[in-house]
């Protein structure tokens, strides 16, 4: 018992899992995280998950893209090899817009994907870290930190009352696929 790191309540039904969250929260038992095979509306609000900071990364990468795109155009079109195209000045802003825009979008999108992968440890070759494999199949999991919440019998009875089909006591945080 003392080696238990996480208690996992496994539900077959999303509504029962939401009900389980309510019950645990009513008893002041902190929830570590929830894992579901599909998005559950309203679960972020219930768990108090903060809004994602991905838009900040998106803005930074986008701004970087704008600077890089414009620099590329300035260097090639106006500084290194100015050409006379239709009598327009070398540094003419309207025809810089499309490329600058495209590079902004490109870096913004790639940067967001990279940030997301980095933050979620999803880079290639990395064994995925999952707490319960069936959370990506047909089970809805509530994970509770067993060391912070010591009354394990109460947790088990609350989970079972709410409709959990299985309660696991895991000594390791993650179960790997390998």
């Amino acid at each position, binding site marked *: 018992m003392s080696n238990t790191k996480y208690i996992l309540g496994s539900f077959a*039904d999303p*509504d*029962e899992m939401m009900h389980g969250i309510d019950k645990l929260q009513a008893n002041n038992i902190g929830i570590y995280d929830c894992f579901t095979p599909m998005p559950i509306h*309203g679960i972020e609000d219930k768990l108090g998950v903060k809004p994602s900071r991905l838009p900040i990364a998106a803005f930074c990468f986008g701004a970087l893209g704008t600077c890089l795109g414009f620099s590329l155009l300035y260097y090639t079109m106006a500084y290194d090899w100015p050409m006379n195209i*239709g009598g327009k000045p070398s540094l003419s802003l*309207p*025809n810089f*817009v499309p490329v600058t825009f495209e590079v902004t979008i490109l870096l913004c999108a790639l940067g967001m994907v990279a940030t997301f992968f980095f933050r979620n440890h999803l880079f290639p070759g990395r064994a995925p870290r999952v707490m319960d494999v069936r959370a990506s199949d047909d089970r809805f999991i509530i994970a509770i930190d067993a060391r912070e919440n010591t009354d394990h019998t109460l947790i088990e009875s609350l989970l079972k009352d709410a409709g959990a089909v299985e309660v696991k006591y895991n000594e390791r945080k993650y179960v790997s696929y390998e």
Partner: protein
Amino acid sequence: MGTHNHHHDYNFGEKFQFAGIAKILSLVGIAVGVVAIAIGLLSSDHIMVERTYANLLLMGYYFTCVCAAGAFFLALQFVTQSGWSAGLIRIPQAMASVLPIAAVILFVIVGLGLFTHNLYHHWHADGLMDENSPNYDALVAGKQAFLNVPGFLIRQILFMGSYSIFAFILAKLSYQEDLEGGLNSYKKSFKLSALFLVIFGFTTPIWSFDTVMSLEAHWFSTMFGWYNFAAMWVSGLATIIIIIILVKKAGYLSWVNENHLHDLGKLLFGFSIFWTYVWFAQFMLIWYSNIPEETVYFYKRWEPEYKPWFWLNIIINFVAPLLLLVDRSRIRSSSALLFTAILLLCGHWLDYYIMIMPGTVESHRGFGFIEIGTAIGFVGLFTFLVMSKLSKHPLAPKNHPFLEESLHHQI
């Protein structure tokens, strides 16, 4: 599996009561419009008469476009089988139901303008197509196969007529669904919408070539149709948002919440960017290639009397929504969204103004009681017709197959 054991106590049968201050204001608006238009048309100054016609065309076209955008919104929801919008579908439906009236009004304006030579005189005047006449215009004569009076009028009737018929049937099917239930109406609406979108997509560019672009018959741009479509869609979305927020403020539509407004706001944001994209694509190609027959359009709009308006157009329709709607919390607040939608509606009036005025009244441009009065008149007429239509049927399509999904929409 109790996945749908949610309970709600919405009154889907509730009807909007169109009365009191809203009705009085819309009737006052119509009266103001009638007075302004009458003063303009009965004026002895022919420039004043032409300016009134230009304003009538502007507002008639705007009015028809917004109603057509309502029908387009409806069809889009059916074809994509969208669930989120099911609860608010009655608002674009009311707009679509008014489309036949708007189409008739625009047709009368266009027809009178054509035959009194107040509109379209660039290609409709004596001798333009006659090689021996001193008025002969080789460029216009070359376009005769497309730009002739019977063809022009037939296209107007065909295009606006078909949009009106589709809009009318789509709205009717949904009202029928209220009474009969079942999936029959939905399935029919799906097929009808797919057909409508194909027809609408291919004909609106030609419709805008006829109605607006032919005011300056020498000039042409293949981007013009998409540019007009973007303006139509943005102003239609802005109108839907404004009606929803105001009707909600009056205590109705309790099942439409900030999640639905968020989605509508995202469409408004996205298509304002799309409008800018098309606007810029048209501008940049003409600026870059610098061919006189193309640059003449922008040359006119860079004359001192139009240049400030030309730039204001970009600021209101691109910079303003970009800054005002980029933030999630602002897009979800109904007051911020209402402000932006009203701003964009004014912005696209300016957009149409920039399209129409340099080709009609040219340097005799004005912004006075004719412009404001005509606009108020048409806004009053639109409000009166749409709200009367809205008050005749329940505010929710209670048998819509996706209504339940719409109630739980969350983003």
